[in-house]
């Protein structure tokens, strides 16, 4: 997602309510303002209502914090579901690039004065999702954070401690002290990613090479390693290609049926086959999944001279007892469109959007070919084989 660097987010540290300003400037009240300020600060720090930005497992610990053993209500903290009535946003969980603009919007909907607690490794730094194409490496990259509560997930006591530290911070802010974030070198080291980022000078070319190898095809040895199969009678395996499906394939001129995968049919007959199968009773679309193969690195036993291509596999099934499955593949060049199946199977809509989003397969005639999982203005296709494993989503990397 694009976030302009000029955008400033008000941290709320210097906010004074207009009413407070009036009291401060009223002559004759000067004696009492220190006491008044203390009183108002006491009010602020003892009624911190939380907006739970809980997206994953930290949310469970957050709930435990409100439950009986720790009971954060002891210090006057209650949880409000609307940002308009909250003072503290607790970001508890992994924030994805698609979620980040929404989190920022909710943050901006909260009334001043407000604070943010980043709870858990994911909110602090992205943790082990840090180098994933879809995850924000720490919420402090797009919004201000007052207190970091480390842990994966932090236990309820840790969050309680974080809230107490937030109280201290507010008190110091209101006394006019400049609160500088305390940098804990040990902690910073822990939150560093295990592999240096692409841009970091410590990253060596060997590391990049090793990663590219790791994200490459499995080696021939790995693939041909025999599976350990328990001894016993051989299981009855239903033929992959049922009678009616085989007849249909023969009618369409497909004679070559591979033993270990779905038959590959000509691209032009993709839609026609789907229509005919539906007419035969295959009414449910099970899955549509595309695979990206680099030049010369097709699936096992493929021709080494094969150019870069996508292999789009579709599986449909009949409904009811004795259900039959039919699956087939089409091959297409990276810039070659394939006709959409969304007119035949309504369920193909999102399946095709997903393949478009993650691999860049283009579906001609699709009613709504937008990104599904990534942000709508994303530019990368992370499931392509040439996508580097350590290449995170812009603008965070």
């Amino acid at each position: 997602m694009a976030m302009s660097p000029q955008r400033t987010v008000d941290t709320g540290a210097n906010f004074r309510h207009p009413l407070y300003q009036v009291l401060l400037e009223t002559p004759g009240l000067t004696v009492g303002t220190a006491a008044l300020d203390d009183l108002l600060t006491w009010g602020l720090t003892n009624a911190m209502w939380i907006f739970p930005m809980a997206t994953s497992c930290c949310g469970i610990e957050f709930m435990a914090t409100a439950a009986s053993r720790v009971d954060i209500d002891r210090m006057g903290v209650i949880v409000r579901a609307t940002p308009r009535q909250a003072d503290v946003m607790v970001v508890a969980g992994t924030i994805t690039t698609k979620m980040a603009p929404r989190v920022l919007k909710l943050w901006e909907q909260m009334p001043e004065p407000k604070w943010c607690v980043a709870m858990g490794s994911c909110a602090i730094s992205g943790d082990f999702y840090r180098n994933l194409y879809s995850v924000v490496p720490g919420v402090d990259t797009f919004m201000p954070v007052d207190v970091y509560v480390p842990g994966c997930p932090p236990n309820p006591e840790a969050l309680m401690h974080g809230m107490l530290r937030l109280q201290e911070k507010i008190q110091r802010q209101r006394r006019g002290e400049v609160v500088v974030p305390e940098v804990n070198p040990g902690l910073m080291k822990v939150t560093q990613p295990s592999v240096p980022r692409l841009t970091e000078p410590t990253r060596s070319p060997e590391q990049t090479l090793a990663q590219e190898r790791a994200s490459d095809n499995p080696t021939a040895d790995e693939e041909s390693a025999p599976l350990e199969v328990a001894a016993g009678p051989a299981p009855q395996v239903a033929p992959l290609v049922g009678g009616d499906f085989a007849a249909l394939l023969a009618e369409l001129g497909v004679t070559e049926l591979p033993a270990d995968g779905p038959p590959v049919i000509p691209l032009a007959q993709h839609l026609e086959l789907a229509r005919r199968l539906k007419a035969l009773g295959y009414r449910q679309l099970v899955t549509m999944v595309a695979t990206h193969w680099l030049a010369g690195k097709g699936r096992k036993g493929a021709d080494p001279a094969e150019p870069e291509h996508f292999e789009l596999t579709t599986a449909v099934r009949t409904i009811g007892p004795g259900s039959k499955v039919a699956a087939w593949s089409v091959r297409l060049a990276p810039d070659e469109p394939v006709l959409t199946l969304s007119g035949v199977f309504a369920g193909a809509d999102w399946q095709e959007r997903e393949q478009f989003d993650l691999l860049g397969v283009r579906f001609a005639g699709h009613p709504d070919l937008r990104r599904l999982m990534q942000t709508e203005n994303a530019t990368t296709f992370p499931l392509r084989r040439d996508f580097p494993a350590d290449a995170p989503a812009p603008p965070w990397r």
Partner: protein
Amino acid sequence: MTDFTHGALYGGGIITVIMTLVALALWGERKMAARMQSRLGPTLVGPFGLLQPVADVLKLLQKEDIVPDEADRVLFNLAPPLGAIGALAVAAVVPFSASIIGADLDAGVLYLLAIGALGVLPVFIAGWGSNNKFALLGAMRAIAQSVSYEVPLVLAALVPVILTGTMKVSAIVEYQAQHHWLIAWPFFLGVPAFVLFMLAMLAESNRIPFDIPEAESELVAGITTEYTGMKFALFYMAEYLHTLIASAVAAALFLGGWDGPFAPGLHWMAAKTLGLFAFVYWVRWTLLRFRSDQLMALCWRWLVPTGVALVLGAALWVVFVG
């Protein structure tokens, strides 16, 4: 001292006491809910956490006041005070003891039902004025619910009116003090009418199990979704006021109001009111929420016919027995 100053001071006194009670009730409810969930509730803010409502109000006073751009400013700002005023206005006819009563109207029951029914207006104003889908959905549900439950509420309140032959709330209490509490005799009319009144009252003040208008899991915070700071506090207070005063009305109509042995009337009234109030919160933290259609079915299929039967029964009782 003119009548007006006298009235203003008197009313001001009653309002102050009620507001203090509401603040304490906020604390009490949090403590009660906490104990029911084997927690402690507020303990760190003041002794036993008693200063918690004070801290809450101080904090809410300092919060930024946000009016959404697209909201209707006039309606948005009008709704919260209207809600609190509507809830307080009902207190005028409630006899807190034999002598403490704001205005002893001849048509007291009619007045409290009419003003109580107005409580739906600020809800709708807030829902419409916020220009927020959750607020509007909440307001729609609140109206459907309030208008429907108005019927059993009125029918239940008619039973003591018929049995005692007066609409004056103080006279109803007086009658009970001289004869029997209506819940005791005729109990086969009094008990069902009391239960009906409490059910309809819970629904009217949008409390669990009838809190569909602000169902947090579906509607964020219902009508108050867009309200910040003190405006939200006013709404919140109005809700507690409504419950508290409705408890007082129920105590006056069915439980003999200030009547009771050994202790002054005010003590009895306070005990009965707070007991009912605590019961409402007991219910709140125990039960789940109805679905919208179940709510309507309960009202029109069960409560309204029961109410009609009770009114008929009361009339027959008065004609043939009383």
